[in-house]
């Protein structure tokens, strides 16, 4: 059995060694993130059978659990680290050609690998201060990567993201200090065991500070002012990683804190409303956008609202629906950003109207964009359909009239989403054929390069497969939902 620590430590060691490889030969530096993520993917897939039976608890340093840092690789942790490794691998293959050679490309690849290490660390850890440290690794590398291209928009977005992110981290640290003062320990399972020994008023403030601090990175409603700027000004491969991994890891952290540490039953309804408001505001703002990447960024906000809504329902099928939506959103949004990257590179502009006629110039890329868009909206043979279906069904099974009203509003959001994506697809395929009628025979097929088409093709395939056979992933998702909802099992697995 492989030790889950290797999921974090081997990519970290390779990242430290990238400058040393650079002394030998400058050309192998860009292949190291690909190698590291391939290793992570293989190890995560190998660990899935063992993690489904019983969460693997590894203690760092060999001391007994409350007195050391421990990693808990349960179904949730291994599922998330497999997703991170898969999307990281595909986007790193895409970036082999997308990021042009310049003065600082080895810094890009090192920062990229460290972002993924931070994300993997957040999902595997079992200790709140360790969560803070890995969360900071994730945030700081994303600040640096948003500013990577060095143009006006990038630097301005990075500054605003940095200021808001740092306030969030500061609130998170205050919450950790309050929890340590109240309970005398930093281990998640230990705090979860003793959470009832103090009055609910005194844990209310740390809970609110946790949700606010983690919510800045997870893009929950009032705290997501940084997201449209940051995701639209970053290079497209980084936008794919930020939208696909960073905000999902933020939502995971919120879910871990609310479900496992605090077990707070009373706050779930508030989270449902917050998710709904985030969803509606995200979709409505996306509808009126003319800049394609800003539109995709607002759509990410909407999807995070939907995921929060599903997790807030807090029944078994609700949590399974939320986790399935996370998988579907990660794959679809990454596909959308990767295809848009090369489209923008060919036309040189971010406006939607300049994408006219792309259906002829870049047929495979436009097909991929269409599949990604349909999957996000939730149409049948693609991955978005089972997830949305599960969420709707979970809301209706609760048999409370409030949830029926809320799910109607969620479906309204989905309709708005369908409207703007269909508008883009119409521009891609049907507009512009009037002007090009005369040069119909000579429309140049300038497709994206092969090395960028490989990850796009694999993502399309995965979306189709998961959409047609959702049973492939529902086994893992059921155990994962069980881990979130069942705190006592978690505490027993860690502390014995």
């Amino acid at each position: 059995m492989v030790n889950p620590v290797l999921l974090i430590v081997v990519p970290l060691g390779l990242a430290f060694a990238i400058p040393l490889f650079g002394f030998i030969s400058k050309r192998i530096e860009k292949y190291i993130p690909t190698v590291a993520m391939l290793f992570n993917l293989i190890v995560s897939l190998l660990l899935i059978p063992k993690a489904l039976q019983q969460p693997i608890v590894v203690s760092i340093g060999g001391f007994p659990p409350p007195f050391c840092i421990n990693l808990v690789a349960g179904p949730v942790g291994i599922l998330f680290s497999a997703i991170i490794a898969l999307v990281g691998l595909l986007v790193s293959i895409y970036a082999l050609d997308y990021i042009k050679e310049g003065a600082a490309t080895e810094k890009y690849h090192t920062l990229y690998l460290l972002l993924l290490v931070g994300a993997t660390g957040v999902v595997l850890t079992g200790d709140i201060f360790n969560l803070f440290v890995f969360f900071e690794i994730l945030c700081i590398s994303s600040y640096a990567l948003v500013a990577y291209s060095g143009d006006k928009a990038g630097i301005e977005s990075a500054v605003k993201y940095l200021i808001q992110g740092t306030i969030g981290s500061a609130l998170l640290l205050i919450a950790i200090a309050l929890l340590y003062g109240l309970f005398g320990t930093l281990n998640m399972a230990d705090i979860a065991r003793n959470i009832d020994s103090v009055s609910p008023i005194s844990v209310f403030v740390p809970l609110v500070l946790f949700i606010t601090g983690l919510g800045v990175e997870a893009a929950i409603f009032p705290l997501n002012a940084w997201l449209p700027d940051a995701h639209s000004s970053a290079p497209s491969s980084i936008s794919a990683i930020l939208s696909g991994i960073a905000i999902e890891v933020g939502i995971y952290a919120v879910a871990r804190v609310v479900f496992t540490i605090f077990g707070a039953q009373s706050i779930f309804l508030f989270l449902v409303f917050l998710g709904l408001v985030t969803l509606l505001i995200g979709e409505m703002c996306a509808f009126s956008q003319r800049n394609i990447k800003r539109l995709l960024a607002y759509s990410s906000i909407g999807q995070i609202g939907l995921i929060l809504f599903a997790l807030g329902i807090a029944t078994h099928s609700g949590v399974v629906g939320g986790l399935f939506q996370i998988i579907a959103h990660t794959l679809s949004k990454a596909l959308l950003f990767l295809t848009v990257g090369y489209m923008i590179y060919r036309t040189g502009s971010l406006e939607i109207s300049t994408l006219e006629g792309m259906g002829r110039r870049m047929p495979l890329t436009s097909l991929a964009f269409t599949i990604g868009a349909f999957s996000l909206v939730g149409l049948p043979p693609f991955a978005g359909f089972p997830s949305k279906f599960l969420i709707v069904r979970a809301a209706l099974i609760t048999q409370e009239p409030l949830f029926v009203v809320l799910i109607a509003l969620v479906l309204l959001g989905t309709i708005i989403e369908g409207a703007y994506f269909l508008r883009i697809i119409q521009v891609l395929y049907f507009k512009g054929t009037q002007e090009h009628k005369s040069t119909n025979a000579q429309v140049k097929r300038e497709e994206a390069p092969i090395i960028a088409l490989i990850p796009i093709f694999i993502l399309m395939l995965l979306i189709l497969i998961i959409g047609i056979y959702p049973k492939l992933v529902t086994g893992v998702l059921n155990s994962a939902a069980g881990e979130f909802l069942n705190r006592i099992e978690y505490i027993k697995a860690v502390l014995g």
Partner: protein
Amino acid sequence: MRRIISILLLGIVALGIILSISKIPFGIPKSKVGKFYIDNGVKETGATNIVTSVVVNYRGFDTLGEVTILFIAALGLGAVLSTRKNKVERKIEPASLILRTGCRFLFPLILLFGTYIFIHGHLTPGGGFQGGAIIASAFLLIYLGCRERRISERGTKLIESLGGLIFVVVGLAGLVISGYFLRNFLPKGIPNLLFSGGIIPIIYIAIGFKVGSELAGIIDNLMEESG
């Protein structure tokens, strides 16, 4: 308008935190984890400075994360500041004789002091980060005093990578030998001697060099900006 809203918001946050802090008594030993570390720290790790044994041994994973964050900051700074197209060559005015001689005289003494602090990290207050910061301040003194000298960038990159890699490799050696990452597998020795504490001095020396060269690299990047 913005002031009023922010003062209101801060007032609510203040009220909340003060409500929560009133449940935490001041000045009483309240943490069972802390008590465990004080009672068993010297026996289990061999270092007499309990804060060091907590930082490197019990919570060594956090220290690994912290070293990574400093690495990211140095890389990010280098990436952002490297996109300057026109390098304006400004004339560097040499410093006076007293300043130059004084800086060159103090430089090895400060380096020695920094090295003393991180080598004795497990016996006296101090450690890798503190010693590394002192070493970087020695380099800053050279930048301010003898203004023509510059650090070689290849050297800082090499030491940085080697430092981080040594930390990870020592942890992996613990994994291979005894099945737990970062386990203290070297003999612990007699407390209060320089050669005690197992892997703790090795890790701290690696961290000291890494932090020193990293902060010196950051200072070098910022100095290049101003010409």
